[in-house]
């Protein structure tokens, strides 16, 4: 009795599935016919058409067989592009994969700071009056060294000199990583987090610039060079 019941359910589901597939195939073909009916000499795909195919490709296994107007690879590429865009938005603001300097600098009151990564042409500033805080820089996995980040800030220079910190024994134009982190706990927390195995897996060292020519007294616009 139970076996018979299972058989009936299985038969009904197969029938329903076939009808579903038929309906999807009809829909896909009608949509492509509608594309050809539009008054354009060239085939013109709108955003809704692209979204339609991205959606159909997700819910229907045999979507490739009914697609005539574009190559299936094009649909897959669009889908991936859309996903990358979505992931980029999700990755903002202190999530894994990107580094945001503005937050720890603002927490320690270094709102006038400039941050530069040593050894590359990348220059970026922590505060941008014209745009909201939260400029990001993607970690380059090909960079073999640890990250040495130079902090230039009038406030930092003032605090370090008031705290009696001396310059680096080898390079008198900077303050040592340890001294900068002693004075600024947020930078230590930031370094601990990003140096961990879940994030970069490399050391993040902050050094403070003592040379006044590197210290910006007025917040500059965000600059990103060389990338």
């Amino acid at each position, binding site marked *: 009795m139970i076996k018979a019941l299972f058989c009936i359910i299985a038969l009904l589901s197969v029938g329903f599935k076939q009808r579903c597939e038929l309906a999807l195939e009809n829909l896909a073909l009608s949509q492509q016919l509608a594309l050809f009916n539009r008054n354009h000499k060239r085939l013109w795909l709108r955003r809704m058409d692209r979204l339609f195919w991205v959606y159909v490709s997700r819910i229907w296994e045999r979507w490739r067989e009914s697609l005539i107007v574009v190559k299936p690879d094009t649909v897959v590429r669009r889908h991936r592009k859309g996903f990358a865009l979505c992931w980029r938005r999700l990755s903002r603001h202190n999530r894994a994969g990107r580094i945001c300097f503005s937050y720890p600098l603002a927490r320690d009151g270094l709102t006038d700071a400039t941050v530069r990564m*040593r*050894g590359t042409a990348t220059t970026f500033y922590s505060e941008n009056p014209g745009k909201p805080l939260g400029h990001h820089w993607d970690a380059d996995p090909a960079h073999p*060294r*640890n990250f*040495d980040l130079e902090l230039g800030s009038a406030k930092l220079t003032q605090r370090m000199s008031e705290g009696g*910190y*001396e310059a*680096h*024994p*080898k*390079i008198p134009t*900077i303050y040592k*990583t*340890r001294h900068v*982190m*002693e004075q600024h*706990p947020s930078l*230590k*927390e930031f370094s*601990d987090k990003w*140096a961990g195995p879940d994030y970069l897996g490399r*050391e993040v*060292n902050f*050094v403070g610039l003592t040379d006044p020519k590197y210290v910006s007294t007025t917040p500059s616009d965000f600059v990103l060079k060389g990338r």
Partner: protein
Amino acid sequence: MKDIVAKSFKSPLSVDEMVKALQTNVPEVSWGGRESEYDDLYVLGRTADGVKIRILNYEAYDELEVYFPSRYFDERKKAFMARIDAEVLPAIGATEVPHGIAT
């Protein structure tokens, strides 16, 4: 006690030799050599619970820096520093430098 503690000393070993000596004598910390733009080659040790140890070489002296996680209380920090004095510094042949040479 601060979250970052430093000790100055002088060691006859190079960075590679220090790494080998520490890997042998203090195996519960993972030791390795690292390179920094400002500090050149240095020794980095990490414990499983997040303490970071850096051993830097300056011309006149060497420096050991211990970075504690913020959840560490004073007693735990003191116990850890006692282990540094008893195990890590003897392993790298550290001798004291004159007081005040390091900042």
